[in-house]
């Protein structure tokens, strides 16, 4: 009988348990694939990534997770987008939806149509033509439809959930699937002197966990990838200046919105994530502009309900390790890099790392590791870089002069690729679409438009169409949206009916 392939996951938390659940659900035969996760009850989890992106649904679906049960267990609410307040300029507000503008059949040219007509006469803002945005503005929710003739086919949704409860839920799933959990603190790591591969981790209580393949989910400590294998960090903090967050839970007021809220402040921005039983809040800030106390005060002022917990401070640096897979070790989650959760990408980055790992690696041999890791690292780099540019855009595109952060950011030097994107959008509404990675064209559009970069020229292939021919298309979409809104219920009501959590 062949020895089982031993996979060791270092660290629980969202990344660790998502990884354990995903691998154990597809690599089912425990006589061939042994999965062990070591975590310490003494070391807390960061778990601030409570807002997700729509891909989380496919992750859950693949695990066979029942949505209602998951939402009840994790106090989850639905999420249709993110509301950005005071970004771009004080007093401004826009929603970045998980959805398109227009209806499905005309979405690819819809913004061009809208710009063309808007250049001739006054018409409602582009956001009025996004069904997802309109649901958000009314605190409504309904499920998407697969019927491309319906306006409900133009959006998808994600969740807000309690990340600690979600991790606990995935732990159950993983353990049911035969993943082993070891409680312990990793003290030392052993490497093969010839290959440099990790062979075992030693725990404080004297246990040894030997493995063939190691997954580093140890969070910011990056115990294996950075501390042991010395992967080099690529620092992006010259573009993303915030280096600290203070997080706190508060009471959730009634009328739960189906979106995350992000409010730009003097030295950063504040998030509010509505759950069924509470809200998650945090202030992401620049520590050389304000003190921890000032950040804490500012956070308190921005709460919508009474605080429920003490503040928790988190330090970080924007960037990522150049190779998140080295030797026989791949880092997933914060151990591979950090990008502030402005666009709720933390859990997405865990998910995409798992997808890429499963795509290239089949957990049966450590042959050809360098070929596999090159491919993996290439895919992950692309993910990180695309998100990075999108985040920088939020800072760069602003007219605020009220504080040093915003004055600095509005003229900071950003990657050339981003300057090019801004120019092409401004002059013609162009944004590139890709096969891999976030974000898609409507997302770029939402932020460009929402933060005041308006399209000035129309695509020449549209500009020769008379606007009278386009106006009926806009009117049709408005009609579809009105009809859809009438049929949708309030988000709060929907949750009560569908997945009310036990209190």
């Amino acid at each position, binding site marked *: 009988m062949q020895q089982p392939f031993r996979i060791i996951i270092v660290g629980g938390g969202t990344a660790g348990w998502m990884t354990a659940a995903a691998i154990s659900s597809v690599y089912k035969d425990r006589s061939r694939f042994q999965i062990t996760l070591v975590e310490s009850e003494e070391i807390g989890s960061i778990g601030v990534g409570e807002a997700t992106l729509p891909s989380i649904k496919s992750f859950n679906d693949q695990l066979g997770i029942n949505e209602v049960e998951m939402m009840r267990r994790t106090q989850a609410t639905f999420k249709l987008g993110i509301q950005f307040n005071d970004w771009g300029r004080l007093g401004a507000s826009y929603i970045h939806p998980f959805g398109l503008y227009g209806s499905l059949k005309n979405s690819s040219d819809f913004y061009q149509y809208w710009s063309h007509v808007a250049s001739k006469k006054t018409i409602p803002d582009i956001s009025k033509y996004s069904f997802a945005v309109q649901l958000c503005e009314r605190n409504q929710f309904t499920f998407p439809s697969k019927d491309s003739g319906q306006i409900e086919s133009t959006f998808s949704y994600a969740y807000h959930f309690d990340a600690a409860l979600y991790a606990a839920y995935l732990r159950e799933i993983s353990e049911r699937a035969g993943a082993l959990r070891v409680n312990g603190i990793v003290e030392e790591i052993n490497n093969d002197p010839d290959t440099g591969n990790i062979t075992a981790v030693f725990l404080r209580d004297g246990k040894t966990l030997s493995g063939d393949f190691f997954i580093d989910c140890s969070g910011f400590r990056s115990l294996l990838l950075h501390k042991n294998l010395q992967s080099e960090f690529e620092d992006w903090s010259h573009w993303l200046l915030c280096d600290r967050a203070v997080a706190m839970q508060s009471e959730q007021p009634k009328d739960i919105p189906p979106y995350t809220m992000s409010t730009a402040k003097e030295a950063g921005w504040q998030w509010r994530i509505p759950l069924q039983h509470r809200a998650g809040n945090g202030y992401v800030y620049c520590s050389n502009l304000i003190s921890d106390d000032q950040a804490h005060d500012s956070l308190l002022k921005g709460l919508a309900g009474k605080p429920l917990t003490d503040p928790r401070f988190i330090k970080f640096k924007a960037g990522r390790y150049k190779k998140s897979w080295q030797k026989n070790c791949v880092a997933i989650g914060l151990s591979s890099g950090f990008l502030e959760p402005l666009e709720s990408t933390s859990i997405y980055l865990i998910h995409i790392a798992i997808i890429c790992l499963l795509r*290239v690696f089949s957990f049966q041999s450590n042959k050809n590791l360098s070929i596999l890791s090159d491919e993996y690292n290439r895919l992950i780099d692309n993910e990180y870089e695309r998100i990075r540019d999108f985040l920088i855009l939020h800072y760069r595109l602003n007219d605020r002069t009220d504080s040093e952060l915003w004055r600095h950011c509005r003229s900071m030097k950003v990657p050339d690729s981003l300057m090019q994107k801004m120019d092409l959008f401004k002059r013609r509404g162009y944004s590139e679409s890709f096969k891999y990675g976030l974000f898609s064209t409507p997302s770029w559009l939402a932020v460009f438009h929402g933060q005041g970069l308006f399209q000035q020229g129309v695509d020449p292939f549209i500009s020769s169409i008379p606007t009278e021919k386009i106006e009926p298309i806009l009117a049709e979409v408005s009609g579809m949206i009105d009809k859809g809104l009438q049929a949708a219920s309030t988000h709060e009501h929907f949750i009560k009916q569908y997945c009310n959590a036990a209190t």
Partner: protein
Amino acid sequence: MNDGIKKIIIVGRDLDAWITAFFLKSVLDKSRDSYEVTLVELGTLLTEHDIFAVLPSYKMLHKTLGANEDKLRQTAKARPFFGQRFTGWNPELPEFFHAYDRLGINFNGVDFFQYWMKAVNNGLKLPLEDFSLGVAAAKHGRFVASTGQADFSHLAYGYHLSAIEYVNAIARAAMEVGVKRENGNIITINRNNDVIDSLSLDDGMVLKADFFIDASGADALLINSLTDNNFESWEHWFLCDRIITASSAPLSPAPAFSQVTAFSSGWCGLYPLNNRTAIQTLYSSRHTDFSGVVAEMKMRVGVDISQGVERPIKCGMLSRPWIGNCLAVGTAAASMEPLDALQEHSLVISMVMLKQLFPNSNEYQNERDVYNKKMHSFIENLRDFQIVHYALNSRDELFWTACKNLKLPHILKEKIDIFKCCGYASVREDETFQEENWISVFNGHGLAPEFYSPLVDNMSDDEMIQNFQKILRMIKERINSSPLV
């Protein structure tokens, strides 16, 4: 309205020139009065033997152009093809198809190819292609309509088109939508640094424009006047330097695929048309000569190409197909060999990208940069796809041994390496061909992964057999209920 470009001059000939002219006039200028599109036509280089084998994307192009496809097909003696059959590239292996369709069904999110590898390991004798509806349509010559089951099939077909007739039909349609034609020889290209101002013709006429399209073919007449060292030669990857085009009698019944056969020093393509069979033979003049090829074709492929027309071919691409106000399209931008029906394909990519990036003002440096970058990457990926056939051959003649020893382009090497590890097709951004196409060709040439994914073991052998049978049954039913091409 556009306050920049009003007048566009295209200099060129044949397909590249007329498609671009038609496209710009009909798609860009919907109201028919904001742009003036003039074609300065150079003499045709086409002969009665020439053929365009074009990928399914030409159907989309025809639709975008608003062209009457039925009429085009009729005029161009067109035959549809669902794929291409490769014979003799790996003599120890069976011939194989590269069709434009899926390969089986990806059960439980795992590539069908992985299941197939396991089944072969367990003794299955059927080739991978037997599980592709597109391949079956090609083999049996059936017009299979869309199945509505995208996870099983999304088959598509391209066309074999008789070149002269097709170009003439496109030209007529282009003139109908208002493309102007000028004849005459260009004496001077009047320019200011990298901006072309006007063209002086030999009859004394001076043609001014805001934007110039170079569709002059391999000469790249306009764009080469703007810069040196813009051509990246692919001679070290593509050893064939001669192409012979010829015709023979129509095949009956005419297959719904192109036949691509390797011979001692090159390859030969047979393309059924309604009134003839078009033949393209590529060879390396360092390894044989015209009469040698003619003799070998007669003996091996059974066709007489002695009356064919021979031309040199030099593969490569421009580093920057768009410089200043001059954009090169088609062969001027990328001179590709006809393998995989790719010779006319860069033109479609250009049109798709122009639709997104054609200047809407006088400032377009970023459009140009994005276009150049994406075009370069698209063409490189296509080139790599062609190189696969040469690099993975297993013939032993001098020509083919030289091909086997090619130093592979970096990205292709990565793709081959990772496929060999785990059977995963690493498709990049900017690719025409997707996972199924790469797997077809890798597998067809015998590139075998070391392992299949253990994820296929989640399905019991019985269930796997049943699923395989189900796919075969579905294909058979679809074929039997579909009309002949």
